[in-house]
């Protein structure tokens, strides 16, 4: 090992996202602590990306400009050089050797953030549908509401089919949310720890299962309306075809029925923040 490391060419250190000891991991931030106001500075933006080479660099640059936080792109076993493009744009890159899907990639980023002592995680899609200018509004909503999770919701993009699906999921889960699949989210330290655990590892999507897990742990979830661009390239992984939708709805229904107690117990905690 040592020999290999010594033989490697020495390159300039680009950024020190150093590995911190467990003691350092417990930063001064606590939910409700005054330091919370500076959340965006100690936040890690996590961008799960699979084959998004055309858009990922722009998204990374946009986030760095809008929030100024560290950016982590989780390359979900892309084959088109997404990881390299993200690195060139100034992001730290996790290279998953096996594709884990959007949620598996996001969770890798959250686990990285927990390990490195970040106080919050901001997730967004790599396809450019979330506008960087709208990111600060999530921090503002977090500060106003003191919630553990803020979801950036875009209502215009919901088609009739989606509206019906969401109405059904709302009834089934008891979660009073308007958009279950939005990839634009802000997690605080407590919710990060909840999601970094093994019980979140078998979930396939970041939607209902993740939200119900959070709710069951007493996390407060709020939504804030954010403008959204239509996808430039690519398409929703969930709403790809009717067969996929049917399978998704069936799996989600089974998941919900097996955990009915969780969502309903905390239904009153979910609220919407108007911005």
């Amino acid at each position, binding site marked *: 090992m040592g020999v290999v490391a010594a033989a490697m060419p020495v390159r300039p250190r680009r950024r020190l996202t150093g590995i911190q000891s467990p003691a350092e991991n417990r930063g001064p931030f606590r939910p409700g602590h005054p330091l919370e106001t500076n959340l965006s500075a100690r936040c890690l933006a996590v961008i799960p990306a699979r084959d998004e080479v055309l858009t990922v660099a722009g998204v990374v640059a946009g986030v760095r400009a809008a929030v100024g936080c560290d950016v982590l792109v989780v390359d979900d076993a892309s084959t088109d050089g997404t990881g390299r493009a993200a690195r060139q744009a100034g992001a730290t890159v996790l290279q*998953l*050797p096996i594709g*884990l899907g959007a949620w598996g990639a996001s969770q890798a980023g959250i*686990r990285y953030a927990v*390990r490195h002592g970040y106080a919050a995680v901001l997730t967004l899609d790599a396809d450019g549908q979330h506008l960087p200018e709208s990111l600060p509004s999530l921090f503002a909503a977090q500060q106003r509401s003191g919630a553990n999770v803020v979801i950036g919701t875009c209502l215009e993009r919901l088609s009739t089919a989606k509206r019906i699906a969401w109405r059904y999921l709302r009834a089934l889960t008891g979660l009073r949310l308007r958009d279950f699949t939005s990839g634009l989210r802000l997690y605080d330290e407590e919710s990060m720890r909840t999601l970094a655990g*093994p019980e979140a590892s*078998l979930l396939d999507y970041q939607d209902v299962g993740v939200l119900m897990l959070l709710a069951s742990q007493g996390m407060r979830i709020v939504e804030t309306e954010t403008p959204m661009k239509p996808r430039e390239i690519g398409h929703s992984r969930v709403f790809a075809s009717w067969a996929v939708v049917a399978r998704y709805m069936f799996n989600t229904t089974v998941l919900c029925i097996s955990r009915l107690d969780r969502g309903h117990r905390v239904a009153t905690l979910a609220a919407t923040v108007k911005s």
Partner: protein
Amino acid sequence: MLNAQITAAILGIALGGAILYLVRRDHLHGPFAAWWLVVAVATLALGVFPALVIWLGDLTGIRYAPVLPIIIALSFILLRLLKLDIDRSRQERQVRRLTQKLAILERELDTLRGNGTPQGSSGTRTDGVDAD
């Protein structure tokens, strides 16, 4: 014409022998081998002593006793399949977490080496560092 008892005995012994052979060749892992040996012994016992089947039929109230071994066999196959899926879920969880941990550690290793741009990218490894 073989006697049904002899047929069952041959099946049971062949199954038991095959299991032991697979364990010997390291193709089958301990607890799984134990399960299959139990199956072999049950086949042998039920085949060689048909009275057992009739006795079990009386006990469970199943009038047509010969169907009993089939019911028992099907139930065990279902249980086994269920157990298999449970194990697969557990392994899937482990694989996912290991994959994530691997990516995180690889990233940290590169940082420790003072190397901002890791060699591996989208499967195009050229330096051979990961090969040793």
